């Protein structure tokens, strides 16, 4: 039944052209989004494979499953792949690419061909990285600290750094495209104060991408030059400073944390109002807090270096600023919660992910306060406490937001509904698996277990066993959506134009949308999130 519906479907971006060339040479932002979706999903599972190796090795205190060198490569490549080839591009390059033009009422991004170029740069970077991995990999940790990376490691440091260097340009181009699109391509009536918060958060994140990514590119290039030509910039025996690398690295890599989390906050700001049938509480505060995070986020990098020998007074300043950057995040959490007050709430899959996001991001954010606290950071720095904290933010926050967004906009992307029962089940499995994996790491970190340890004292084993058990549940939670989302492409119920009765412009065109998004340029005469004017969606049922 469902399959016959496809043939009678009107022209859309999926059936506009066929053949591999129509995909590889497309300039349609929606098709490019799908190219990204496929490539980052592949990289996610490669990174996940390394996570699996790590968790299996840590099941026992002795270093027994892998050799020490293999283990070091496993956590290094897990980190590099997940950060640079999954988390940074995840929401912006897939959902942002697909949705930003539609949300502002445009036909495409400002520079469609540059958009395609950015995907090719990503593929070039990812390809080089995979090649580096196949030829033996890299063991520097994701942080590439000198002088270990520049003078001591005898693994494929140059290839890995260059792969990330190349992928960085893909990020810069995406950011550039978003900034110009939001400034120049808004439909008539789409004022800044009517922009969906998803667009606001992408605007903020694009500023970071544009300003911070060049710094990591330069930093990695310096490190590569040092390694190849022995320049001595980071070499103490030649008058250089190894700690300088850390300043440069974190000047990008702390803002990069916000590159990973801000888009998720944008997703959650769309989902909560929709499933509460309410205008978001404090629109301008949520919008401006994104900008505040982007700006203050540039001024906190040295909080990664409280035990690296920086001066006492600079440590004080960076601790203070790190507390300051927590305020806009707190504002967001309170506003999302307040949005639910007196709402009409339904618990569809995207909403479950959004609520999971709020819970886990709250814990991730609050444990960040421990790390901003100078005296406490001295103890927990470089222990599993830090690992737990940033996984709560990066996985509990960024990945849950990503999954919530994929489910929320799946009807628009695929033109099909996913099976609701399976969706909810996967959301619950991810939530449980995640907490079981990472909560014990707070405790074992406070006990003192350092990160990046291949073998560890036996008294830490209980917590590591819990973590590994949790990780296997989490893996199931990740595999389920792959299966049922693919299944839904063929067998899912055909989606209507606006199955959630959501307010954004992207819901005022066909599912899947036509190549140029709208049949005629929309004119916006209403404010954002006017849920009082929208009818209730059809009853969500668990039938497949």
């Amino acid at each position: 039944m469902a399959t016959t519906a496809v043939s009678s479907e009107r022209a859309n971006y999926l059936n506009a052209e066929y053949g591999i060339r129509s995909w590889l040479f497309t300039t349609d932002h929606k098709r490019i989004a799908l190219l990204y979706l496929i490539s980052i999903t592949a990289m996610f599972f490669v990174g996940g494979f390394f996570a699996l190796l790590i968790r299996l090795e840590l099941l026992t205190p002795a270093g027994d499953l892998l050799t020490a060198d293999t283990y070091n490569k496993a956590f290094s490549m897990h980190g590099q792949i997940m950060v640079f080839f999954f988390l940074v591009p995840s929401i912006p390059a897939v959902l942002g690419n697909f949705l930003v033009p539609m949300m502002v009422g445009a036909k495409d991004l400002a520079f469609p061909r540059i958009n395609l170029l950015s995907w090719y740069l990503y593929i070039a970077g990812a390809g080089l990285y995979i090649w580096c991995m196949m030829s033996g990999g890299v063991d520097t940790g994701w942080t590439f600290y000198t002088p270990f990376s520049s003078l001591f490691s005898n693994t494929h440091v140059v290839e890995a750094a260059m792969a990330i260097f190349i992928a960085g340009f893909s990020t810069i181009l995406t950011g550039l495209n978003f900034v110009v699109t939001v400034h120049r391509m808004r439909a008539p009536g789409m004022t800044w104060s009517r922009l969906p918060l998803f667009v606001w958060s992408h605007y903020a994140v694009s500023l970071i991408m544009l300003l911070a990514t060049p710094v990591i590119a330069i930093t990695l290039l310096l490190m590569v030059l040092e390694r190849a030509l022995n320049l001595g910039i980071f070499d103490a025996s030649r008058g250089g400073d190894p700690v300088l690398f850390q300043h440069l690295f974190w000047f990008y890599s702390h803002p990069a944390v916000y590159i990973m989390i801000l888009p998720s906050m944008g997703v959650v700001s769309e989902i909560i109002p929709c499933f509460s049938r309410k205008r978001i509480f404090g629109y301008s505060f949520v919008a401006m807090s994104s900008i505040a995070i982007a700006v203050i986020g540039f001024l906190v990098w040295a909080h990664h270096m409280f035990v690296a020998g920086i001066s006492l007074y600079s440590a004080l300043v960076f601790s203070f600023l790190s507390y300051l950057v927590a305020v806009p995040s707190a504002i967001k959490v309170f506003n999302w919660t307040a949005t639910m007050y007196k709402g009409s709430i339904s618990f569809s899959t995207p909403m479950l992910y959004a609520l999971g996001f709020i819970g886990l991001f709250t814990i991730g954010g609050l444990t960040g306060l421990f790390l901003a606290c100078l005296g406490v950071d001295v103890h927990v720095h470089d222990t599993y406490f830090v690992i737990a904290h940033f996984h709560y933010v990066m996985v509990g926050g960024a990945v849950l937001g990503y999954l919530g967004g994929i489910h929320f906009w799946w009807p628009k992307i695929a033109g099909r509904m996913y099976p609701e029962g399976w969706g909810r089940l996967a959301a619950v499995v991810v939530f449980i698996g995640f907490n079981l994996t990472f909560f014990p790491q707070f405790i074992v970190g406070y006990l003192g277990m350092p990160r990046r340890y291949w073998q560890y004292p036996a008294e830490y084993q209980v917590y590591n066993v819990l973590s590994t058990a949790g990780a296997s549940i989490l893996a199931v939670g990740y595999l389920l959506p792959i299966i049922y989302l693919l299944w839904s492409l063929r067998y899912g119920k055909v989606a209507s134009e606006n199955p959630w009765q959501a307010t954004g412009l992207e819901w005022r065109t066909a599912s899947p949308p036509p190549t140029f998004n709208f049949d005629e340029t929309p004119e916006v005469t209403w404010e954002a999130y006017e849920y009082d004017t929208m009818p209730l969606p059809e009853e969500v049922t668990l039938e497949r």
Partner: protein
Amino acid sequence: MFDNFPFWPTSASVHARYEDWLFIFLTVVSVVMTVLIFALIALFAMKYRRRHDHEATQIEGSLLLETVWSVLPFGVMLLMFAGGAVLYFSMRTPPQNADQVYVVAKQWMWKLQHMEGPREINQLHVPVDRNVELIMTSQDVIHSFFVPEFRIKQDVIPGRYTTMWFRATRVGTYHLFCAQFCGTMHSGMVGDIVVMDPHGYQAWMTNGQPSGGLAQTGMTLFQQLGCSTCHNMETQGRGPNLRGVFGNPVQLEDGRTVVADENYVRESILFPAAKVVSGFKNIMPSWQGQVTEDQLDQLIAYIRSLNPAPEGAATNAGAAGGNPPQSQ
């Protein structure tokens, strides 16, 4: 009972107890906030579940609420900031009268040298209730000296000295970990901190190899390397007289004034041209690559020993400066 299922690390230094209180304060605040958010979500989820007989009430927002939930949490955060800063200041300010131990880290071992002579590898014996200062450097990559039971950690960096200090409060054997990833056997770069009672420590010291003090070795090296040809301790030679220099300000040729600490002495040996003392010529050769990290420590200990003993040199066990704040 908790031997195989530890829940809280042992507190074995003066900083540990304060750090634990701070951690508990932060945890209480976090739990309250988490419970508040979770409870509100659960309450709203139940109370405002979608029903046919009621619609959502549209609310724009509230400036008052926004102000309250920005300012109040920030106020609490300032308390955290202050508490952490006080502890950090104490951790980073070694008391004047501390016993000094020189630490050289290398892939993948810790070499520790007591001022009084004994030399240890991957083990550090210290007496209980005495201030101990570690002066640390690395021969290769960055390492980090971490003792969880003392709640202290400091990166150990090639090309310069970083310092940390502690006062153990409990006899026992504690973990020493390298906390900064340093290559293949990073997780094998571990050892023990053995905290002993004063008598046991004395006995251990006298049983140790009688190699003479670190400064003594440094003096011999100073003669052997020919440093004493220019740096004459009785009259002013071609290089400055080093007596009484350590720890005091030095006027440089370019007009600046710097304090002659470990890092300055180290730099002056390895890169003599970097900071030339006022009134002297830039004629000293570089010793880069000619002296090892251990020998640098010996030379520094010797130059330090050229200072007259500080007035009223307090006994270490006393409560002289640099004590951690009292935990409430």
